[in-house]
Structure formats: structure tokens, C-alpha cells
């Protein structure tokens, strides 16, 4: 049973298919790490270390950037991520 869903080979985040408990070990698709906090179903977990301002890659595409350093196993959401396009003006 897969616990997380990696949507593209170059992604640095994965989606939790069920609630992941704090400290739960995830070993899947050639990766092994443990969750640093509990993460709700449908939310994202870091599957690699992500530096400040580094792109958050999902579906093989950049969906925003880190606004603090994120270590593998952390919950990735609005508290540590921001979209690249704040206003419609930028093209």
C-alpha cells in the first residue's frame, strides 16, 4: 500500500494518501525517510531538503518557492511556501 504519491520523477514534494503520523517511516519508490510532524491526507510532504527560495516542484513543474529552509519529511504548505505569481501583472 503506497502512503505517498510522487507525481513526477523530478518532484521534491509528494502528496500524502492518508494521514501521516509524526515520526512515521516512509519507504517507497526508492526513497526512505521519516515524517518530522503529522501531515493530513491530501497535504504535501518534502521528499528532499529544499533551500530558502528554492522552487517547490510538483508534477515536474514549479508551483512556488520555499520561504524558509525545508528538511525532508516536513509538512509543506502555506506556512513555508509562497506562489511565484502574486499578482496577475507579471507575465
Amino acid at each position, binding site marked *: *500500500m*503506497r*502512503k505517498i*504519491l510522487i*507525481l513526477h520523477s523530478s518532484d521534491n514534494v509528494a*502528496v500524502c*494518501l*492518508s494521514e501521516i503520523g509524526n515520526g512515521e517511516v516512509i519507504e517507497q519508490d526508492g526513497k526512505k525517510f521519516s515524517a518530522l510532524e503529522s501531515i*493530513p*491526507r*491530501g*497535504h*504535501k510532504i518534502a521528499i528532499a531538503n529544499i533551500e530558502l527560495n528554492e522552487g*517547490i516542484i*510538483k*508534477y*515536474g*513543474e*514549479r*508551483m*512556488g518557492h520555499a520561504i524558509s529552509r525545508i528538511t525532508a519529511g516536513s509538512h*509543506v*504548505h*502555506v506556512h513555508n*511556501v*509562497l*506562489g*511565484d*505569481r502574486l*499578482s*496577475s501583472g507579471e*507575465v
Partner: protein
Amino acid sequence: MNNSPLKAYLRPNGSWGLRNHILVLPLHSALSSSARAIEEASQGAVAITHDWSGEIDADLERIVSTLAGFASNPNNFATIFVTLDSPNERRIIERAKLLGLSNFVHLSLADVGSMHKLVDVGTREADQLIARALLQDRIPAPWSAIVLGLECGGSDALSGITANPALGVASDMLVDLGATSILAETTEILGAEHLLAARAITPEVGVEIVNTVLRYESSINYEGIDLRGAQPSRGNIEGGLSTLEEKSLGAAKKAGNALFTGVLEYAEVPAVPGLFFMDTPGHDIEQLTGFAAGHVNIVVFTSGRGTPTGSATMPVIKVATNTPMATSLKDLIDLNAGTIADGVESLSEVGNRIFNEIVAVANGKETKAERGGHHEFSLSRLYN
């Protein structure tokens, strides 16, 4: 010639029908009831209802191209126009002929004499055309016969994780084989337009994608509504979506990772195979109608909450994003992608199941929406 397993109806202009419908198309709203009566009385004609009473305003050309495109969709063996024989109605018929319609009957209320007679005459015409259509056989068709519409409606937090990316796998497979696939719903790609633009085959197509979104935003902003402000919504954030790009990518992933060959206006027919983006609203039925008018002949429609809607001309395959809904609403769901979220199937496994379902339906398998007799239709107006 890649040997595809497809068998379809070859039309005189070289396009392919995956169905062989007799369409009863009223060109005035007051004739919709007669069209419905003909559908009911006939041996299997299909009809639609709409609310255009011949008004001449800024939306006239959009309506003319929609009705003409719908009439000439390659899934129609023939179209019966039910009209008042006005100049704009005749223009719609001429446009449909230019778009490839060859078999048609034009019933004018004035010639027939009354709405009641219209139903009798229309039913007789429909049954004769149905008999002729039965004589036409499907013949081997290339992969380029498929013109696939990608749609999502009633989305939930899992849409961007299960059904949409899985559909993207099937769409990429078909585009590689030489078919056509069309992504739409301009409101859904808001915030990801620059990412899609980066996948255009030429810089010009990329600029067209971005301009289509900016044009859409300005058509909405006059209402003082900034769609970017409310996205992702509170519900989306609770569901796990963190940025506008992430939400829009969840919808855009219905189109997989293939490159975009071009951008289509609403109801525009693509001239070559490949992956396209069509400027349509997110409104489920205005989008389906724009697809049909753009000569899409099969649609895959992903949904989280479930919807029974379909089209008079196009088979619409419903893919559920989650197993609970696929189970509780069995008679309106064709295929469940929720197994991805259950950790039971992978994206590519479900993608291949969707691909196989598209081939089966293209070859004649009936969808739940067709069995339920769902022929929803909706003209799209901009009101500016």
C-alpha cells in the same frame, strides 16, 4: 500507417465520426419544444434545447459559430435544422456546410405550416435518415480520427492528484500516436499560464496562451472581481492546496506533459492534430458545447463530486477522482481513478485504463451519460 484498433464513420470531408447521430437542431428557442418532440417520437434522433430567439447583439457571431460547429460535428450522420428561415439562420446553415456538413434537411416552420405539423414532418425525416445511417458501416480509422476533449467539473482536493494527472497519461499517449487532444477552461489555468506557455511548440503559441488568460481576466475584472484574490479558496487550502499555481496545475495536468501545438478560440475547429488549448469558460456545459462545436468527437470528464451531464453529439466518459463517490454514484461514473488515492493503483496503470476506455467508447461502447439520455447544451455569451 500506425495500425490503430479504431473503426469509425468516414465523413465526406475526411473527418471521422465515432457516432452516427441524426441531430435535430432548432435555430430558434421557441422551436426547441418541437425538436424535443421529434427526438421523442423518432427511432433514435437526438435533439437539444437553447435560449436564442434570434437576438442581434455582441454575442451573435459567437452563437452563429457555436450552432454551425455543433451542426457539423463529425459524430452527426445528418442534421435536421428546424428554423424560421431568417437570414441569420440561413447563415448558420451555410457556415455548417463550410465546416463539412453534407447530409442535412432544412425544415422551415413557414413551409411546414404549424408547430404540430413540424413534429410529424420532422419525425418522418428523422426516421428516414436513421434508416440511411444504419446502412453506413464503421471502417478502419487512424489514430488521428480521435479528437479528445479534456474536462473537469465538480472538482475536489483529489482531482489534481488522481483523475486529472491519470487523464494526462492517456492524453499524452494519444497525442504521441497522432490524435488531437484539447484542454480548456481558461479560469482553471489562471496562475499557471506561464508554465503552460513554457510547453508551447513556438514562442508565439506561448504568448497566445498567456494573452488568452489575461483577456479572460479583463473580461471578468470589470465586475470588480479579482479571481486571483480568492484562489486557492479556503476549502482548497484545507484540502492541501498551497498556491494558485498548484491548484491550476492540478487542472492543467489533464493535458499531461505534451507540448501545445496551438490555441483555439471558443468553438474553433483545430486544423491539425496535436495538443491544443481552447478558450472556454469553466462552466461545464458551455465548455462541452464549445468542444462539440470545435468538432471534438469524444470527451473524458473528471469529477470529484459527480455529475450526470453529457452531450447529444459526443460520448462523455466520466472519471471519478475518489472511490467513495465512484461507488455511491455508480450509474453516472464510467471509471474510478480513486484507486490512486487508495494507494492501490499507480498513475500510469489508471492512465492506461482511461486510454483503453477511450478506445472502447470510440469503437461504440455506450457511456453512462449516453445511456441516461443526457443531451445538455448551453450557448456561451460574454454579455459585453
